[in-house]
């Protein structure tokens, strides 16, 4: 399809383990092709994530919500909220 954009989703905080992704590489992340105009929620559901509310999503240093529209070449970081110490 012509209107397809390439995005990359990186999972941290053990989300990749929960999703049971095979051969997952932290550096590369999960490359996906999604139809243009879709939102992050759609992409995550396609990747197999059951629930979204407890996670945080970042796109180039900015926090986004699952309703954010995806753009071509986006790199979305997905992690669980955490504290340092």
């Amino acid at each position: 399809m012509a209107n397809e954009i390439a995005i990359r989703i990186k999972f941290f905080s053990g989300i990749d383990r929960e999703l049971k992704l095979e051969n997952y590489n932290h550096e590369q992340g999960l490359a996906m092709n999604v139809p243009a105009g879709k939102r992050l929620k759609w992409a995550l559901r396609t990747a197999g994530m059951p629930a979204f509310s407890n996670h945080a999503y970042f796109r180039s240093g900015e926090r986004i919500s699952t309703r954010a529209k995806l753009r071509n070449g986006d790199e979305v970081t997905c992690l669980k909220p955490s504290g340092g110490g």
Partner: protein
Amino acid sequence: MREVIGSNNRILEIDLSTKKFTVSEINKKDRNMYLGGKGMGLKLLYDRMEPGVDPLGEDNMIAFTMGVFMGSGAPCSGRFEAVTKSPLTGIMTCSSCGGPFGMALKTTGWDAMIIRGKASAPVYLAIDSKGVQFKPAKGIWGKDMNQAEAALLKEGAGALVIGQAGENLVRIANIRSGHRFVGRGGMGAVLGSKNVKGIVAKGGEIKIVPAKKEKFKKIVRRFNKYINNNPVTSGTYRSFGTNSATIACNTTGTIPVRNFTGGSHGEVHKISGETMAERFKTKWDTCKPCTIMCGHKGTIAGEERHIPEYETVHLLGSNLEIFDPVAVSDFNELCSKYGMDTISLGGILGWAMEATEKGLIKTSLKFGSTEGVADMIRDIALCRGIGKDLAQGSRLAAKKYGGEDFAMHVKGLELPGYEPRGAVGHGLGYATANRGGCHLSSYVISIEILFNMANPFTPKWKHYMVKFMENLFAAINSLHICQFTAYAVMFEPFLVKVSPFPLLKVLMGNMAPLAMNLMDVSLFPETWHAILGKHYIPYLGMLKFIKAGERVHVLERYMNTREGISKKDDTLPLRLLTEGRKCDAKEHTVPLEKMLKKYYKSRGYDENGIPKKRLLRRLGIKIQ
């Protein structure tokens, strides 16, 4: 075993110069006003210590205080507080530690211990319920922490030791108990200056029983439920430790890179908690008792080691542009052997690297290279060569060699691993923290970045967040319970749990006082009341608890102002206030002046940052 209901209330005061000790009691009024732990330690020193004494002199005192929670079986309560005048900053410093010594001292029958004077020859102190024995430390003086602790633990259940760094009066030396440390502010040097190599408490002589047993049990159950439900305390901390925040902070540009010139780096995932957990096959190794389980150990380079914490990883790793977890762990091990604070050490090494780059000093250190770092750590601990000057802390080193503009410290205490240009409220927290550049005084970055409840770049309401969290954390550190439980207690109660996140965000961003005061932290005071057998009045009890926290914080501030602290010291390193970073397009800096003014006003300080008399009177602090 003797049973004690509530709390011992006994203070052991040790004078090393005369080798005598006295026993006194914590009076009830002080207990109600200052709770215990940090508050009690400060109050005891406030009554006993003159301002202006030399931190490494005979007149300085160091207090170890246990809270009410210790020994009662409350969750995450295995922590005690050490309070003294810091040789690194020249002002009061309080440090919390989760080692076994606290429990040992408490179950020996002491709630607090104050050490003053100076022993004529190296000694170690053996404490039992009757008092203290001064034993010559011939065999262990000069030994590293591992050996010294092993030797002392033969005589009791918990020990405090200093390493060679403490003996050599390195101003960033720490005190160790188990694999936990009384880290910041150079307390090891204070013990070293008193010729005390270690303190060992017999332990197991008494048993603490909560006064209202049934109620206490109920509360503990609720407490544990909160902790186990919270995604932070039960999820990420439990699986990856404190280092789990690395990726989140890197993504938002809040980790220190290259002596705080950058906020994120492409290779940080190599030292993140996730990577370490996978690579080193980690398992739990925590304070006792603990429900959160953030401490981990694993197999690194063929031996079992403690996994470096977040701050260690970032100050000794990304701040030096070293992204090799094994190297970071090596440095960490060296620190725990010689007894030095990893945060301050990282700050000093970062300064040294930049100073070398700028031609101010001559060392073999270089950003991004592990070469010479281990040797330099040894040199600092043993005060050899230029290490002798670096051992004075980055402030004094910069005074001697220059480079004060890139010495990353506040009031002399080196900054921890959060870069405030990505979270300005956290920057205000650094500037106003009583002991110097400290992230635990108020942890606003959790609101700004980790839970994303406020815009990290605006100064809006940040003064209030800082104030509220400072009060809360001062109170928590006086109970004394692990600060991480605050996540669970703040976010798990019903009201917060059911509110939709966007609503919370709007509330926090625009009406922070309302949002923060609606937060229900009553679990803390309820537990405290149940242990001591006091009647707890809902809500009012919580307000009283927060006010006690405010009292502790303001008392510490007031003690510091007597040592000369004022607005001029409530600042950040120049770099954070003036230079923009390459990693953010808008080149943010910290708008400190704006926030500071509002902060002083909301705190009740005058425009110079000195607590007003009215405030001290309101809080019941006696003006000396």
